[in-house]
C-alpha cells in the first residue's frame, strides 16, 4: 500500500534523529559563529581628509521602507580640509528596533557615508542598544564593515544604471 511506506519512513526519521546530537546554538551563553558576510549594525564614515562624509542629502531617509532614519540637514559651509562649500548633516539617528536590515540606505548613499558593520553583541540587551545616535554611528566606524558600500554596489550593477552607462564600461567588477 502506498500509505504504509511513508508512515514507516516518518517513524524511521524521528528515531534516527533521537540518536543525533542536538544542533541548538546556546547563543547568549556561548559565542556563536557568524557567516563571513554577516552584518547587523550601521556606521557613518569619515572621508580620508578627516571630514564627515555625510552631506545630509536625506536620500537614505526617503528610501528607508520602515522610516527609521532621521537626518537633520545643516546649512552648506566650507570644508575645513578642502575649503570647498558642501552639505553637512548636524543630526543623524537610526532606530534599529524597526530596521528590516534591507541595506537600501547603504545602496542609495551617493558619498559612501553609511555602511553596515559587524557588532559583537547583536542585537543587544536593552532598547537603548538599538537606538543609534549620530555619536554612536561615528563610534561604530572603527568596527569591521561590510565590503558593500554605496558606490561599489552601484558599480556592480549589471547592466549599469543609466546615469553611468556611458562612463562605467570597465568598472563592472563582480560583487566586491
Amino acid at each position, binding site marked *: 500500500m502506498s500509505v504504509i511506506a511513508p508512515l514507516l519512513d516518518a517513524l524511521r526519521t524521528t528515531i534516527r534523529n533521537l540518536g*543525533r546530537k542536538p544542533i541548538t546554538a546556546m547563543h547568549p551563553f556561548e559565542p556563536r559563529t557568524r557567516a563571513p558576510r554577516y552584518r547587523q549594525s550601521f556606521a557613518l564614515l569619515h572621508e580620508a581628509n578627516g571630514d564627515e562624509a555625510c552631506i545630509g542629502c536625506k536620500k537614505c531617509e526617503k528610501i528607508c521602507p520602515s522610516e527609521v532614519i532621521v537626518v537633520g540637514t545643516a546649512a552648506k559651509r566650507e570644508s575645513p580640509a578642502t575649503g570647498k562649500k558642501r552639505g553637512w548633516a548636524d543630526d543623524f539617528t537610526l532606530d534599529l528596533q524597526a530596521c528590516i536590515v534591507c541595506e537600501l540606505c547603504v545602496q542609495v548613499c551617493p558619498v559612501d557615508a553609511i555602511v553596515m558593520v559587524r557588532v559583537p553583541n547583536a542585537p543587544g540587551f536593552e532598547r537603548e542598544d538599538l537606538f543609534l545616535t549620530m555619536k554612536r554611528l561615528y563610534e561604530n566606524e572603527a568596527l569591521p564593515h561590510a565590503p558593500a558600500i554605496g558606490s561599489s554596489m552601484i558599480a556592480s550593477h549589471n547592466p549599469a544604471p543609466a546615469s553611468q552607462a556611458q562612463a562605467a564600461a570597465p568598472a563592472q567588477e563582480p560583487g566586491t
Partner: protein
Amino acid sequence: MNVLFGSPALHALVLGVGIVSALLGVTSYFIWFERKFAGRMQSRIGPKHVGPYGLLQPIADAFKLLIKADITPDTADRALFNLAPLLAVCVALLSLAVLPLASGLVIADLDVGVLFFLAAGALTVVPTWMAGWGSNNKYALLGGMRAIAQSVAYGVPLVLAALVPVILSGSMKLSDIVAAQAGGHWFALWPPGPGLGAGVLFVLASLAEGNRIPFDIPEAESELVSGISTEYTGMKFGMFYLGEYVHSLVVAALFVTLFLGGYDGPGPDVLALQLLWFVLKVSLVSVLLLWVRWSYVRLRSDQLMTLCWKYLLPSGLLLVAASAVWVWWTEQGGSR
C-alpha cells in the same frame, strides 16, 4: 472482592487517593520526559535551564500557570466554562478505578470493568463540548463540534477493539482478563492476528478519542487558533493539558492490561514485582505512543472520518468475528 484495607469503602479511598496522586506526579514528569524526547527527535535540547537537565521545569510551569491572569470572557457561559477543565481531569482519571495495577491492587474490580472504562472514555467528549460551547467563541465552538464528530465516530472501533479481549477471556472483569493472559499468553501475541490487530485498533481509537496528535483536530492550532482551549488561561488551560496527558497514560495502561498481560511477567507473584512489570510495560507503551505522536502531522477532518468509517470499523468487525471463531475453534479442539 479482594480488600486490602478494612472495609471496601476504606480500601477504595486509600487506593484511590494514593493512585491518583501518584499518577498526577508521574504525569508532570511524563510531560517533562515528552518535551525532552520530542526535543531530541527534532534535534533540539528541550527543557534545560530550570534545575539540572530542566528537571524542575514541571514545577516552574505549574507556578507560571498559577500566577497567570484567570480570565472568563464576558459572553461565556460561566458555569460551563469554569466546570469544563475540572471535568476534563476527573473524566480522564475515572478509568483508573477499574485498572488492576497488580494482583488485588485495584480500586474497584467491577464485573463490568470494560464497560466502565468504555463509558468513561466516551465521557471525555462532554467536558470538551462544554468548553467549546461555554466559551462562546467561534473557534472553540468549531473545535467542540469536531470533537463530538470524532468521538462518536471513534467510539465504535474502540468498543469493537475492547470486545476482542472480552471474547477471548470470556469476562468483562479486568482482573479476569489479566488472569486469562497469565504465563505470557498475552492477547497481543496469541492468538496471532485478532489480538495484535485489536491492540493497534484500540490505540488508534483511544488516541483519537483523547484528541492526541495526529488526531488533534478539535485543537488544530493551524486552523482553529487553539480550538476548545482558545479562551482558557492559566490553570484552567493547565487542567485541559493535564487531562490530555493523564488520558494518554491511562490509554497506555489500558492497552497493557487488555493486550500485554497487565502485571503478568516472569518471576514470582510478588506485589512489588507485579507492580514493576506493570510500570515497565506502561512506560514502554507510552514511549512508543510518543514516538508515533512526534512523527506524524495532523490528519484532515475528512481523512479522519474516512480512516474511521472505511477502514477501522470494518477491520474491527472482522477482528471481533475472527476472535469469536477462534474461541469456538479452540473449544471444539478442546473437546476433541
